[in-house]
Each structure stands twice: as structure tokens, then as C-alpha cells.
């Protein structure tokens, strides 16, 4: 720590400032790592979302973690849609389907060509983790998608190293209970569907579906809580991104002070 400048300790918010400072330092280091020319990215197909990520997309050789509220929430669809552009350019998509319930036509609808789709059905958790490590390490330029309920930090790290070594992209769908757990993912995202009742659907089609995506953690960007709304049109599977509107309380405060 000798290289670091002295932090004033007398401040009342000393702990907060210290944390801020360390976060900035980390961000600078990670930003330099992101600018490394050897790494390519997978564009999500949503320019607004790509801009929120420091590398302009998901990095090859890394892990992406989507936290999903539960069945029918559409987070898996979002995750697949985010990598569909890479698949349509020739990358293989390897899906881990332990329950045997994955429906390929659903993925086809999202833009994933069936000829680039491989389904792996491991019999148990042990085989699943072994196969995940093997595919992440061996399938260079491929996208590996798996739904993981339990994942300890050691196994997570092993998967991250495998992806880094293999040059693949791992996309994991995790339950909401995984939020407080440590993560080795490059990007951790929280997505939840916006129901028609509470959501604002101005301009959206009736058959469309909208989610709120929040970047919980992203290597190279320390600011959390970046929120984006994404709408997937059910008739024409196109995606629209909506800028996050100001919170009503903030809007009221600003207008009052003005």
C-alpha cells in the first residue's frame, strides 16, 4: 500500500471514502485489463446494453451470471437472446439441460440456429460440473449456458478459470438466493419481468414483454445499480431498449427546487 496516496482519516465518512477510493483503483486496473487487445467480445445485440458494459459486450473467456426470480420469468430467454447474434455468426451454443425440459424451438424463435445448438443432459450434479469445466475449457469460441442452483465459490472459480483458459463464454442462470454469494463472473445481472399492471407500456406492442435489467456487478465498472428496460416483441423478435426514467421522488424534488 506504500504506492497509494494518504487517505484523510479525520473525515466523518472515512470508511465510505476509503471504499470509494479502492473501488476506483480497482476499476482503473480492470479497465486497463479490459482494453487488452487479445480479448474479443460478444455483442448482446442491444447497443444500449453493450454501452453499459466496459468492453462493449460480454467478453470471451469469461462468465456472465443472470439472477432469475423463478419459472416463467423469461430470464433464460433474455440470456439466450443476448448471445443469439454470436450464434447466428457461427458460434456453437451448448446448453446444459439436466431436467430434459429444454425446448429447442423456443431457442430457434429467439434467433439461435438449430444446427449450432448442442444439448448436454448430465445425469447428476457431479457429471454436470465435470462437463461444464470440460466444455468451458475445450470449446473455444462457444457459448455455454447452464442453470445452476448451487455453486460454491471454489467450483465457481474453477469454472471461471476454465472459461478463461478455453476462450469460451459461460452464461449461468442462478436463483435469486445466489445474490449475496460471492461471484467469479465478469458480469452479474438481475432481471425481472415487468408485469402489464405495474409496467409502463407506452409505445410497446400488446404482445411484447418487458424486463428490467440491473447490472449488479461488472468487472471494470464499479458503479452498481445501472438499470435498463428491455422489451422483446413477441410478433417480430426484435428488442427495444428504453432509457430509465427518473424516479418520481427525484423528479418531484428537482422540479420543486427549480
Amino acid at each position, binding site marked *: 500500500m506504500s504506492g497509494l496516496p494518504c487517505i484523510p482519516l479525520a473525515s466523518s465518512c472515512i470508511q465510505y471514502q476509503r471504499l470509494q477510493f479502492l473501488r476506483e483503483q480497482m476499476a482503473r486496473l480492470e479497465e486497463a485489463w479490459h482494453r487488452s487487445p487479445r480479448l474479443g467480445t460478444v455483442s448482446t445485440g442491444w447497443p444500449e446494453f453493450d454501452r453499459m458494459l466496459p468492453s462493449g459486450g460480454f467478453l470471451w473467456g469469461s462468465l456472465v451470471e443472470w439472477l432469475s426470480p423463478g419459472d416463467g420469468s423469461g430470464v433464460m430467454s433474455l440470456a439466450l437472446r443476448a448471445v443469439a447474434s454470436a*450464434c447466428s455468426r457461427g458460434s456453437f451454443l451448448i446448453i446444459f439441460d439436466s431436467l430434459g425440459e429444454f*425446448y429447442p424451438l423456443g431457442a430457434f424463435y429467439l*434467433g439461435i440456429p438449430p444446427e449450432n445448438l448442442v444439448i448436454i443432459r448430465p445425469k447428476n450434479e457431479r457429471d454436470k460440473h465435470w462437463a461444464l469445466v470440460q466444455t468451458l475449457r475445450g470449446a473455444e469460441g462457444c457459448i455455454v449456458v447452464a442453470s445452476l442452483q448451487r455453486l460454491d465459490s471454489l467450483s465457481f472459480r474453477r469454472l471461471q478459470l476454465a472459461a478463461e483458459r478455453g476462450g469460451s463464454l459461460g452464461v449461468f442462470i442462478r436463483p435469486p438466493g445466489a445474490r449475496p454469494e460471492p461471484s467469479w463472473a465478469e458480469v452479474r445481472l438481475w432481471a425481472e419481468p415487468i408485469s402489464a399492471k405495474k409496467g409502463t407500456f407506452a409505445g410497446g406492442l400488446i404482445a411484447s414483454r418487458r424486463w428490467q435489467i440491473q447490472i449488479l456487478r461488472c468487472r471494470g465498472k464499479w458503479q452498481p445499480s445501472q438499470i435498463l428496460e428491455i422489451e422483446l416483441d413477441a410478433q417480430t423478435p426484435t428488442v427495444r431498449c428504453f432509457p430509465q426514467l427518473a424516479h418520481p421522488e427525484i423528479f418531484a424534488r428537482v422540479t420543486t427546487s427549480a
Partner: protein
Amino acid sequence: MLWTSQGGTHRVAWMCEGARRLAICPGMLLSEATALTGSRKLSAEPWDKQADDKALEELGRWCHQFTPSVALDTEKPGDCLLLDITQSAAVFGAEERVAQLLLAQLAAKRILAQGAIAETPGAAWAVAHFAPQFSRVPSSSQVPPSHTPVAPLPPQRNQPSKKTSRSSPPADELSEPTTPPRYRREHPEDSSRSSQGVFPCEPLLIVPSGHAVEALQPLPPEALRVDEVATGWLRELGITTVGQLMKIPPEELIQRFGPGILHRWKQAIGEVQEVLHFLPEAEDLTGQWDFEYPTSLRAEIATAFAEILKQLIHRLSTRGYGILGLRGFIRGEKRMLNSFEVGLFRPCVKWVHLKGILEARLEGISLPEPVYLVELQVTQTAPLSQDQGSLFEGLGTRCSPAKWAELFDRLCSRLGPQAVLQVELTEELLPEYSYCLVPGALGSRNPGVQGSQKRDSAIRGANPGSKERKPRSKRGEADWGFRKHSGGAPCDWPPRPIRLFSPPVAIAAIALGAEGPPAQFVVSGRRYPVLRSWGPERLETGWWRGHLIRRDYYRVETASGEQFWVFRSLDTGQWFLHGSFD
């Protein structure tokens, strides 16, 4: 009955004698053939020509025990093996005896074959394929050999002889006991076994030396292996036998039909040599490791296998061949403890890779008692392929075929080929039948992977029962007529869920109208009020499936934003949850 697709229609390719009796013939529309069967049960399967060719090649290699010169018929591929048995006569006693033994052993393997011996491959082929149609005699199981008419044989046969065998319909279906005197019929030696009901043998046809012309003359022109166009013309001209054909002066024959027919005739009577491409003899690639002391340690067993593997790889790699299939045996003191098979997607001689696969395979094998001996056998080999390196290799580039093959070898060896699946879409609309999963089938997709490794047992969607489904053409665009957006998915297609429950889950639902969407439904005790819904989308099975299934599908969104795929059965009115838009 086997069918094949021709010009978008299913046509009969091969059929059993029972189907033939119902006037079903090759080229007939499958729907017509099915209609002809009436209430009789008729099994119709798609014809896998590649598998047929492979099986015939394997049979040819098996025939190496009779002669080293076994060739596949390259001119008219499909059902015929050509064996040069001239030299084998010295070992077996006589050429007839070689052929009789071969036919008897084929019968023991439950393969019904028609054999013929002649001076030339062309003559043997013609007699084997077309002579029985002129003169079918009851098989050995029906008529004693002494009843078979026998033509006189010349005392000595010094000419090199060819023997051909082809698969034939079951002998017990044959009739019309008339025999032309141009060739002799010999029954296989152990026909007594046939009469005991083991399996019938076809009699052997022998064209005596110097009698090829006489033997060929009553046969139809197709017996000369000429193309269908030429035979069609000949039929129109009223020429029904080779004898009639050969009465036409050669110059006129060439002028009218080209040189092909005359060339075939000359090949058949031995005036022109025919080049045969003999199958290479399979080398016995087996290695054993005899333990000094019996062991139960898996590490030691794995090391023994690895050492055998090293020797086998050395023997193969010097010839430019790689391993495609391995079979391992683990023996105890008195019995076989276990055996396993390993299939590879690409010929490989990388010791580390193969060793890793064997180790992964050994992990799942039980060893009830100490091991005395291990044996490793190479069951399949193929020439090694060379890959061009890429200038821009690095992160994010597409995986090379070699790496793919290695990865899938590893996955299949541990998880099993049934756990590594690729998708083929079909033309069916019902979700269960709309796709099939092909186990370990990267062969047809990945250019670097062996196509022969494609497994023939596809998992048919969520319902493995259905069989007669044709994979949809690439991406299904042409067949479904959907427009596609730039991402590759169809535009006009209603959304499909990511998860499909098999079987559909019966739910209690309340609908506002008799034909409307559900207002709420209950799954596993949890109530889901429906906020929005899309549908109905009516999906029905085709009439050819027999039992008609009719469903009205709805995509419903609950108050909390989840979306599910539910349907009402139009037969029973029951609601089902079929999928979720995860």
C-alpha cells in the same frame, strides 16, 4: 418396408416378400403402399443407405476368412459382394465348397444370400440377381437336395472363377420349380440345419466354365448392369433377353445405345477385364496386459490400458491411420468382469487424449473382483486428416474441428452418447413431435467430424414413440414458409417456450368462456391469476398419426409477469400446462 424421399414424396425403396405379395413394389408412394396393406400391420422405416453400405462393407470384411479378395460392387452398389475364390479352392477343396460354406455361415448369421459362381464377375452378378426370377426352386428347407435338377458340369474348371452373393427375400416365399439347364444348382453343405428350422439357405448357382454366353442369354438386359434409361429403351423395342440383344450387330448396338451395353457384355463373357477394388484386409489390432498379480487398483488398470494403447497407436500412426473405435475387456480369474466400448468422432492418435477418454470410461465401470488381464482392441480405424491452421487463432475464434472432436469424445465417453445431443427440426406442428434429438451427432454438421459416427437412434422430441418423421430442411424456413429477421428466427411464428414439460401437467383452470383463455389456474397448489393472454393457436396432429390430437394453446401472463404456455384439449376440455417462457 423401407422408404426413401424422392422429390419431396416418400416412396418405397425395399420391401419384404409379404409386402410384395400385396402388390407393393419399389418406387410406389408410401401412402399408396400403406393403403394397400389395409388392416394388416406393416412396419415402415426410413431407409438408411449409409448404414446399409457400412453393413455390407463389414460383411465383406467378415468374408475375408474365405478369400482375401473381396470387393464391393462399385458399378451397381447396394447389395452385392464379389469374391475371387480361385485361390481358396486349394485350401477348402473346391470352389463350390467355399461358396457352400459361405452361404451356410451366412444362413447361420440369419442372412439370406443368393450365391453364384461364374468365370467373370459380370456373369456371376447376372446369374445371382436374375436367374432365380426365371427359375425359383423350393428352398432346401422344403425340398431335399436330391430333388434339385442339376445340369452336367464339365470335368475340369481351370478358369478363374468369381462368386457373388446378394441378399434375397426369404426362401420360404419362393415357388415355381422350373430350372433352366444352363447352370447348376448346388445346395449348401449343411442344409440339414436349414431343414431343422434354423434358417433357410438359397441354393448355389454355378455357371460352368465356357458356358457364360448360354447362361446369360435367357436373362433380361438388366442383368448386364446397364443403366435404367437403356433398359427402358430396350423394353420399348421389345427386347426382353440378352440373347435377343446380342443378335443386334455390334456396330448398330453402339450406334443406337452407345458403347456401354457392348462393353458390359464383353465384361460378362470375359472378353474385357473388369477391375475390382478389393477391400483391405482388417489387421488384428489387439493388445493384452497380463498382470503378474491380480489387482483391484484402478490406477494400475488404467496404466495397463494406457501402455497397450501406446503400442496400438504406434502401429497405426506409422501407416497414417487413427483410432475411431476401441473395445476394452477386463478379465478376472475365471470370467469376464466387464467390457466397454469407446467411439470417437474423429480418427485420433493422440495418446494423452485417448488415455483420458479411457480413464473417464473406467471410472464408471464396476470391478467385482481382482483383475487378471486387460485387453484392448481397435475396432475401427480411419485415415488421419490434417487441419489447416488459422492465421487469426485466439480467443473468440471458432473452435477447430479437431478440438470439437476431442471435446465430444471426452463428453461422450463419460456421459454417454445419449447425453450429448444435437437438434433436428421436423415438419410436425405438435410440440412433442416438432424436433428430434440426435445423440452425439456432430458428424453431419461439423466438417471435421466423421459422419459415420452419427447415431441412428434419434430421440424424437418429448415423445420417443414416433418414428416416421422427416427432419425439416435447414432452419425450417422453406417448409414453414416463415419470413426471418436478421437474427435467424422466423418472424411470423408465435413464440415458443424455452421449457416444455413432458408429459403436459394437468391443471385446474377457470375460463371465462367455453372457448376462451383461462382467467386463472392452479399449479402445485399455487394460484396464478392471468393478466394477459394470447391465443388460441390451434395445433393438431396429422391424420397419418392415427389418433387425432387437437389442442388450443394460449400464452398467458400472470400478475407477477411470468409467462406460461397452456392448452385446452379439445377432446376432453381438460387444461394442461405445457411449458414456461423461462
